[in-house]
């Protein structure tokens, strides 16, 4: 008789299958992509009206304003796009099929992979929009990219497990941001600070502490999610 826990190659095969299925469905429905792209474009355009090249860029505080706006755009677009990963399985009543056929951990990892991919696209888009519309100059592109990657990892880790919790609750969409925001606040505060350093170009040494915290946050959220996901998924 096969043991309780599937071997790890099977786990990754299953996780990959979940990710591929979700990407396929996403490409056909474009639900998350549309929500995120529209939100990102709207925010960037709205902000650039007043704070565009002629407005904020001469201001000494421009860098911190831009860093905050960048993360506001990323955060709310992500809240719009990533909230439905698990709710959709409940609403289309495919959750029983998924629970029966897929190890819980594979479901989590598959969904995490998709969310990571979506966030990478979103962050690229938001950056391009800010550079194009607001005349943002990134003094340290390497540090900037690293900050967005590590911050994005933490964001994806936290939103994936919260989306799983919200899917089992009855309030759903309104709950998602309420539950996610307090958990993401430390991440956002630190990410904004390090982004500021990257935009202003004040050097790697200043950013190192913040980057470490971001990495630790992403790691802690992911480990906790791995431990708590099965309980969430099977409740």
């Amino acid at each position: 008789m096969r043991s309780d826990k599937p071997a790890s190659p099977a786990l990754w095969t299953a996780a990959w299958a979940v990710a591929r299925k979700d990407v396929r469905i996403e490409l056909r429905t474009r639900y998350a992509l549309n929500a995120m792209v529209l939100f990102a474009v709207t925010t960037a355009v709205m902000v650039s009206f007043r704070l565009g090249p002629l407005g904020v860029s001469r201001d000494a505080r421009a860098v911190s304003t831009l860093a905050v706006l960048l993360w506001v755009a990323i955060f709310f677009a992500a809240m719009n796009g990533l909230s439905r990963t698990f709710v959709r399985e409940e609403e289309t009543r495919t959750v029983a099929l998924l629970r029966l056929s897929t190890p819980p951990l594979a479901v989590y990892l598959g969904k995490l992979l998709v969310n990571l991919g979506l966030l990478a696209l979103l962050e690229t888009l938001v950056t391009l929009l800010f550079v194009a519309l607001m005349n943002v100059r990134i003094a340290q592109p390497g540090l900037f990219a690293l900050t967005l990657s590590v911050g994005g990892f933490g964001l994806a880790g936290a939103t994936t497990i919260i989306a799983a919790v919200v899917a089992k609750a009855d309030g759903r969409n309104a709950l998602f941001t309420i539950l996610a925001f307090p958990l993401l606040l430390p991440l956002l505060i630190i990410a904004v600070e390090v982004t500021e350093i990257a935009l202003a170009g004040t050097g790697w040494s200043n950013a190192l502490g913040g980057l470490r915290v971001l990495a630790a946050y992403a790691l802690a959220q992911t480990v906790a999610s791995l431990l708590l996901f099965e309980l969430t998924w099977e409740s």
Partner: protein
Amino acid sequence: MNVTGAAPLRLVWQHVAKTYGSRPVWQHLAGELQSGEVLVVSGANGTGKSTLLRLFSGLEQPTAGTIRYTCGPQSLTPRAMRPQIGLVAPEMMMYRELTALENLQFVAAARGLARSTAALLEQLAAVGLSGRASEPVANYSSGMLLRLKYALALVHQPAVLLLDEPTAMFDEAGRELVDTIIMAQRQRGLTIVATNDQRELAWGDYVLKVGSAGQ
């Protein structure tokens, strides 16, 4: 797992009770079933036939009592048994945006099976869906959806087959298909059918009537 090997697979349930809120569905259900046997669960609407199948598949937990699959010295909970369970149920839907083949490919990969496209197409043909494999499931009729559910439930050749309202959307040809599937499952493991249809009681070696006194 190969249940046709040495020890036969047995399903044993004892003192099983399920309560929703303060409304008890049933209490003190007990029984057992062995590889090669078929159990038919019958009872009026709302007597918890589907619930019982969900307990046997580990999708829900009983409020009290135990359910175990045993094979020789090993004893597994329904949840741990899932890799060996196939379920067909009205409330279990498929991915509408994907084609029948893509649904089947997903389930096979999620179960860690390496199946070629040809083998999967053959499986679809076996449930009467040849030529329709590349259509999105959203376009399927309810009868075709049910056929696809059989393909999904049987892709891993499960030792335990759970059928909830197995012919609810079927014509006579579909009924014959289910008949064939149950006959084949007798060779491979155990089968539990939940139904209200009097004709289907004949499939069972045993009939469990829920809603009255239990077994």
